[in-house]
């Protein structure tokens, strides 16, 4: 009987490894999902104004951390341009560790899809959001609760497969 113990343990181990092959160890869910977005008070890009987290209220919003020095940000930029043109969701940009003149030049060159842009010059607010790096995006409902977090550039497939259904749900909840 006891000679069967090793083989059964091994079977368990192999099953675990088999499941492990289908998981992605690098994908870490944010603990902020379902919570209110962290409050912030940041300078705006262009003038001396301030942006606070209150601007996130009232309608579903996509918050995007980006920077002019971030190459992958260019990958999702065309999608954002189309989204802002279509008006399907409001996009708020937070420029991450970037000089304002660089951000402005970058937006001028590639187009500005953002309803407004706040500046997080040293990345302090980004830590509150649990940002790893740029680009990173958060989908918020009208009450400012974080519904979904996406690390890395959003592809068209990501948008159709994940963001659009979630946006539809939000629209149903808040008519």
């Amino acid at each position: 009987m006891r000679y069967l113990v090793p083989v059964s343990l091994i079977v368990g181990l192999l099953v675990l490894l088999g499941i492990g092959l289908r998981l992605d160890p690098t994908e870490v869910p944010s603990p902020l999902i379902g919570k209110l977005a962290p409050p912030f008070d940041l300078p705006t890009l262009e003038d001396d104004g301030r942006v606070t987290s209150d601007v996130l209220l009232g309608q579903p919003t996509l918050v995007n951390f980006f920077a002019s020095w971030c190459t992958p940000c260019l990958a999702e930029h065309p999608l954002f341009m189309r989204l802002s043109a279509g008006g399907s969701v409001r996009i708020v940009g937070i420029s991450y560790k970037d000089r304002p003149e660089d951000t402005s030049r970058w937006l001028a060159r590639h187009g500005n899809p953002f309803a407004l842009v706040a500046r997080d010059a040293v990345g302090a607010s980004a830590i509150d959001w649990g940002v790893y790096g740029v680009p990173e995006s958060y989908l918020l409902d009208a009450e400012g609760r974080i519904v979904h977090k996406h690390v890395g550039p959003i592809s068209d497939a990501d948008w159709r497969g994940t963001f659009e259904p979630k946006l539809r749900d939000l629209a149903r909840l808040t008519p």
Partner: protein
Amino acid sequence: MKTWLPVPLLSLLPCLLLFAGAALAVPEVNEAERPRYQALLHELRCVVCQNQSIAESNAPLAKDLRGQVATQINAGRSNDQIRQYLTERYGDFVLYKPPLRARTLALWFGPFVLLAAGLVMAVWFTRRRRRPPGAAADVPAPVDAAALQGLLDRYPGERP
């Protein structure tokens, strides 16, 4: 161990990309707090890296987090408060020392339960197949094989 090709450029991408950005200056921690500061840094995982603590990593986010830890230590916050600050933002994943919760019971107590079981088994294994109490005290001295053979030859009918 340290054999293998340190990964895939691709997965280091976030670290590398961040290089372009400025990092917060890491404030100095005073002499008395420095051991606590260093020890705490080694317990916290750099979430953008492959498998490094924020003490080891050169990723800008690790630097920012070192700065946060230093600032909070200077503000007199306890290790637990700082850990909580980080888990609220990045999840339990940042803690290299998983907190004792229901889901980590097996992790923390497993080795010691196994050790206890192993020791019990070793004792059981060495006790079984021994003579009943009383007889156990005087096990006969090992018998010389030749002498044994001699005895067996002399009393052939009494082989067990």
